[in-house]
């Protein structure tokens, strides 16, 4: 099995799985019926992408594991998502800030992944990019509404951006698998996306009258499987059914 390719796919897929799980938590708990449906809609988009990635990963692994096994039955340190996406839905401001900070990256990354020499990844990216483009539109809109809204909405979205900013730099860290895949023309060189990312993020934040944080201290670890304290609870939720009733199916 091509371990680097396998890990590379997991790195991309896990971001979508964990963010999808976070958004799914809002089902029935969104601030309004319309935003509730919008968030769960995005969750289903992400889970749809995840299925394609894990099916491909299962094929590469070739050890009898299915997409469900890969999604549901790994341990915490075997998930390679960035720390940003596992952060909780503290309030709608955090939900939108997390989404926005990920969407800008996601769109840039998929645009490059579409050019991959790996036809499976290229095809998945091609399909996912339309969804990511809509997500970015939705979250950017909400950033502007909240930032340029009432005093309270401004204060809350600013607090969320300040808190989550520390997780943005990790998006551009390369793992061993990343480097190997870039070498082969399969993977995206995320280090090259960084300037475009911060430029776009800053433009939207400025339009939204949100101050761009200046902190130079950034958290990292998710890509190596070292997660924040929120991850265990999230996985407990995600994996409960499979762990309690092994091999259950709907």
């Amino acid at each position, binding site marked *: 099995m091509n371990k680097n390719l396998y890990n590379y796919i997991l790195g991309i897929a896990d971001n979508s799985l964990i963010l999808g799980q976070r958004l799914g938590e809002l089902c029935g708990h969104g601030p*309004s*019926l*319309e935003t509730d*449906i*919008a968030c769960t*809609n995005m969750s289903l988009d992400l889970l749809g992408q995840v299925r394609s990635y894990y099916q491909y990963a299962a094929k590469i692994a070739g050890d009898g594991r299915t997409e469900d096994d890969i999604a549901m039955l790994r341990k915490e340190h075997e998930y390679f998502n960035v720390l940003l996406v596992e952060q909780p839905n503290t309030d709608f401001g955090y939900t939108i800030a997390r989404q926005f900070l990920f969407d800008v990256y996601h769109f840039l990354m998929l645009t490059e992944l579409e050019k991959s020499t790996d036809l499976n990844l290229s095809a998945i990216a091609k399909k996912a990019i339309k969804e990511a483009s809509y997500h970015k539109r939705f979250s950017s*809109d909400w950033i502007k509404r909240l930032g340029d809204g009432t005093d309270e909405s401004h204060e809350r979205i600013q607090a969320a951006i300040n808190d989550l900013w520390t997780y943005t730099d990790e998006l551009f860290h390369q793992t061993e698998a990343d480097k190997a895949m870039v070498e082969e023309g399969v993977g995206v060189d995320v280090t090259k996306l960084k300037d475009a990312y911060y430029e776009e993020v800053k433009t939207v934040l400025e339009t939204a009258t949100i101050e761009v944080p200046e902190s130079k201290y950034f958290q990292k670890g998710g890509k190596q499987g070292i997660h924040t304290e929120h991850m265990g609870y999230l996985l407990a939720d995600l994996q409960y059914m499979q762990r309690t009733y092994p091999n259950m199916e709907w």
Partner: protein
Amino acid sequence: MSNKKNWPLWEVFVRSKNGLEHRHFGSLHAADAEMALENARDVYTRRNEGVSIWVVESKHITASNPEHNGELFEPAQDKVYRHPTFYDLPDEVKHM
């Protein structure tokens, strides 16, 4: 419920296929037209129902008053001669 806390109501019209007309699908709340379009997309077209959406704020719709139904609609009920059903259509004319 004060107006301050509630977004205005919008009516949503969706065209399900090119060539068909927009049909009323339902209503939703949104702060402005752009948000109404995005909400309509998520609430009413997430199962592939549409190719085009119109939204209009409900307050801009002028509706007939049900109390006037008698004078508005009853005169038309007994005038069958207004339906073009008294002559045969040639077979070549379809979709009438």
